[in-house]
């Protein structure tokens, strides 16, 4: 135990060779240099441990005792450190390698998107990129899979379901696209009929015989453009094409509260990173205890992996997002405007693309228990023509019967 001290200071194991090596012991004692574990190897040689001293002093002692020294071992911390210094390159290389392996183990190696067409795939990749998820990104900064799902599904409207799952270093995104049944394209002989009851405004007929005029009231299913052209004697069937703009009416009603309580994000956020080992947590970044008065807290746990193993270390990311509560009192005019706007938007969603709302009339407006109740009707100009196939055989028979 006593020699443990010398381990930290460093000592030599050496052979003292000379005619009378005991002199060296005496001189060492006089000079107060520690020596221990002395053994006689042979007539002229002593083996001993010597505490590390200044090499000049040692040389003087040897000269005085007329002895030579042969160093057998160099022990202790100073020698160890020197050895380490020599191997610094190897050590640094090894550390660097481990670090690289650690980083690579926590990297996203592939992002696979299944069930989306190329355009949607590209769109998804862009959104994921905004959320720090791409091939080669660090998994530690990627949000939770449920958060990713949220981000994707709020931005993608054409998708019925989206699932994000992670397996090792691979992220897999499963997409189910909304598939509308393709409208049956009628390409043979066909009529154009009215989709709904309306007043015809304008006709743009490319092919076929128009049967209605402007300002004419038509019922749903009524033939607008006939696919049969020519006189009764010599006729032929064509695939009629064109647009019939009709004026249609819609009724809608809605109600909204006059006072609204909003909670919205101010845009300020505060991130805190913590490293967790079992029950101990060490803050790495962000030391404020409560950054905001009102906030939403999102916590993401990221276990740190090493190759195929999961280390007990967990990176915690806590995101505080400042929120603000606001109460908005609407005036009647504002509320009305809001309601009409939303009603029109809702209506246009159901109508063909080139439909136009001409005007919205308010039929009824009342305020009941803080709620604005509104009933309106809209006048719309839209294409009411839909193709309908002509049963040629039936039509021919009918024509044959007629003259008889």
């Amino acid at each position: 135990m006593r020699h443990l001290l010398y381990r930290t200071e460093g000592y030599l194991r050496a052979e003292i060779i000379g005619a009378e090596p005991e002199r060296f012991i005496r001189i060492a004692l006089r000079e107060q240099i520690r020596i221990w574990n002395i053994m006689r190897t042979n007539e002229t040689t002593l083996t001993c441990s010597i505490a590390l001293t200044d090499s000049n002093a040692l040389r003087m002692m040897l000269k005085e005792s007329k002895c030579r020294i042969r160093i057998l071992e160099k022990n202790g911390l100073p020698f160890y450190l020197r050895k380490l210094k020599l191997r610094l390159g190897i050590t640094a290389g090894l550390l660097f390698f481990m670090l690289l392996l650690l980083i690579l183990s926590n990297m996203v190696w592939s992002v696979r998107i299944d069930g989306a067409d190329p355009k949607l795939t590209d769109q998804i990749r862009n959104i994921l990129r905004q959320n720090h998820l791409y091939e080669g990104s660090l998994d530690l900064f990627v949000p939770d899979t449920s958060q990713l799902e949220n981000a994707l599904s709020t931005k993608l409207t054409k998708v019925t379901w989206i699932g994000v799952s992670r397996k090792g270093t691979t992220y897999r995104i499963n997409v189910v696209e909304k598939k509308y049944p393709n409208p049956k394209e009628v390409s043979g002989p066909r009529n154009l009929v009215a989709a709904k009851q309306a007043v015809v405004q304008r006709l743009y007929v490319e092919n076929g015989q128009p049967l209605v005029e402007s300002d004419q009231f038509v019922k749903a299913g009524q033939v607008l453009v006939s696919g049969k052209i020519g006189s009764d004697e010599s006729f032929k069937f064509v695939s009629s094409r064109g647009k019939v703009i009709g004026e249609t009416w819609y009724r809608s009603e809605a109600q909204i509260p006059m006072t609204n309580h909003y909670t919205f994000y101010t845009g300020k956020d505060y991130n805190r990173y913590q490293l967790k080992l079992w029950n101990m947590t060490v803050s790495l970044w962000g030391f404020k205890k409560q950054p905001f008065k009102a906030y939403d807290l999102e916590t993401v746990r990221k276990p740190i992996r090493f190759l195929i193993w999961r280390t007990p270390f967990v990176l915690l990311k806590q995101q505080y997002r400042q929120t603000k509560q606001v109460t908005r009192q609407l005036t009647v005019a504002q509320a009305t405007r809001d309601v009409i706007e939303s009603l029109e938007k809702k209506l246009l969603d159901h109508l063909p693309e080139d439909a136009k709302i001409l005007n919205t009339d308010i039929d009824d407006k009342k305020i009941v228990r803080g709620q604005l109740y509104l009933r309106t009707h809209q006048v719309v100009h839209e294409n009411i023509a839909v193709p309908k196939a002509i049963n040629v055989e039936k039509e021919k028979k009918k024509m044959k019967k007629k003259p008889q």
Partner: protein
Amino acid sequence: MRKWSAHLKKWFAEVSDIPEDVMLGVPRLTLIGQFRLSIENYQSVLSFSKTELKLALNEGELHITGNDFVLETILEKEIVLQGRVTGVRFENE
């Protein structure tokens, strides 16, 4: 004169209960079994080998014989010897 003072010291040591080795500057030997011998109050190492250790004392020499001797510790006032001790002998001329 010297003999007289030595006698006085010896007498004082007996009377005052102070250990004699401290008073008289004579060696104190502690032998543990046969394998470890510590000697206090020696003067210097005269010779050392595997089988023999000769120490100079204030008066005379101390010869220790045995085998497999290792000097475990050497300090100015104390020396610890390890090995098999077979004989301790004082040489006074």
